[in-house]
């Protein structure tokens, strides 16, 4: 039974290392998806050139407040689209420049939010690697304690308990990683939807 646990711990590590093997140059990246560390405007925008660094969108209170509102995922996308349409109508002659500033703001905020998520995922991957290494060492130690003559019963009991606990933490973290890995995608989808809604309001004449 105790030996089984050590074997199980090793199996968990082995299967996880295989499943979450880093596919990019980043050794801590824990997700299946290829890591794209930063988003590009060109993936989302085919309208007039946007130099997000040069546009000070925060200076315009109407833009800043709408950016803050529509990046919230709890606001359904079609309602965000209605707000954008209202905003474009009110902007009148400044319609296109106002929409450009709005896109620059949305892009900056969501790209930053996504970068924070990626950093979190990297830290998560690093912690899992540390825990995997500890599980491996404990499993080796447990086998050694069991093999001793006489077996070190106190040590075996202590290690068995620690292995059981750590394996559970490791496995539950691995399960939640699958959901966490979907987060950057969710942000990208929001950005794409908003970019499309903003572009639809551009006056192309």
């Amino acid at each position, binding site marked *: 039974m105790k030996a089984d646990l050590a074997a199980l711990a090793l199996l968990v590590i082995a299967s996880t290392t295989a499943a979450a093997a880093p596919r990019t140059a980043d050794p801590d990246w824990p997700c299946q998806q*290829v890591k794209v*560390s930063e988003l*590009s405007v060109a*993936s989302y925008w085919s309208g007039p050139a946007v130099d997000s660094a040069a546009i000070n969108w925060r200076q315009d209170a109407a833009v800043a407040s709408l950016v803050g509102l529509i990046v919230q995922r709890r606001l359904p996308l079609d309602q965000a689209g209605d707000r954008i349409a209202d905003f474009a109508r009110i902007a009148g002659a400044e319609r296109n420049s106002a929409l450009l500033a709005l896109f620059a703001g949305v892009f900056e905020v969501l790209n930053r939010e996504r970068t924070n998520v990626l950093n979190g995922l990297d830290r998560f991957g690093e912690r899992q690697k540390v825990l995997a290494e500890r599980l491996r060492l404990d499993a080796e130690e447990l086998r050694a304690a069991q093999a001793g003559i006489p077996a070190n019963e106190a040590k075996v009991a202590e290690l068995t308990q620690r292995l059981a606990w750590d394996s559970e933490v490791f496995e539950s973290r691995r399960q939640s990683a699958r959901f966490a890995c979907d987060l950057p995608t969710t942000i990208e989808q929001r950005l794409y939807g908003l970019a499309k809604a903003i572009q639809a309001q551009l006056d192309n004449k």
Partner: protein
Amino acid sequence: MQVAMTDAAVRLIATIAAAWALAPLPALALTAYVSNERDNSISVVDLDAMKTVRTIAVGQRPRGIMLTADGTSLLVCASDDDTIQIIDTRTLQIVGDLPSGPDPETFALPATGNPLFVSNENDNRVTVIDVPTRKVLAEIPTGVEPEGMAISPDGQTIVNTSETTNMAHFIDYATRKVVANVLVDPRPRVAQFKHDGSELWVSSELGGTVSVIDPVKHAVKTRISFDIRGLRAEAIQPVGIRFTKDDATAFVALGPANRVAVIDARTAKVASYLLVGQRVWQMAFTPDEKYLLTTNGLSNDISVIDVAALKVIKSIQVGRMPWGIVVSPQ
């Protein structure tokens, strides 16, 4: 006075009723079928009306999707159910399955329409299935995880790509032996022969390139790379490849670049990029090559490209995370 209906009359009425019920089915129009990886469903898209008209529930994680040569059956890799489901395109009902082996992701049919070659990623083998009898003809061990599958136009050579080795492995079907290994860039995905068999193109998702391989010399002739203004190189992840029937033009789906590259297939030079939906993955032509359709995994739609004008003319909503697409031959 009551008239007793004869059995024959009842059968006749039932037949007429069944025929009438079948008549308005979208399978009679020019139809695209899209596998939705996240929704465990197939979207049936009427290409005359340019909209999704039906959704068929299928097994878990549907990815690879093909039609049999006669167009009567749709084959769908239900990867997480370890099976290939057969859907009757007339009734849109699941009518059976094929013994695909574990975790089927992609498959390929030769020009003759039989047999079917399935890549089993978790099992390091290619399963060969006789479609009419639904029997396994052979299991070819590949030694490495197979990913993309291609069959040469003469049906003699099977190619599978592997992300373990970053190679395209050429297997001779007659002897079932690997005859050549060609190194390509990291994480090869799709392998596609030109219609005349003169070249094999292999896309590398991580490497960001397409390798053009001479299938006789088993050597890379050239590597196509992509440069899109304003886009970080890591966002360019080539996946799906399609050639026009005359092999003059190639289209390559570039994943999170949200673009399809248009390539002069004779010179291997990129001519232009078309902005499509989000995370573009696989593509299919309509039979007349008037349109090229792309699956966009994150925007949950397909983009319709007018091939002559090289313009995206329409986006059609489908299910969540569309993966593969096939168009009926009618």
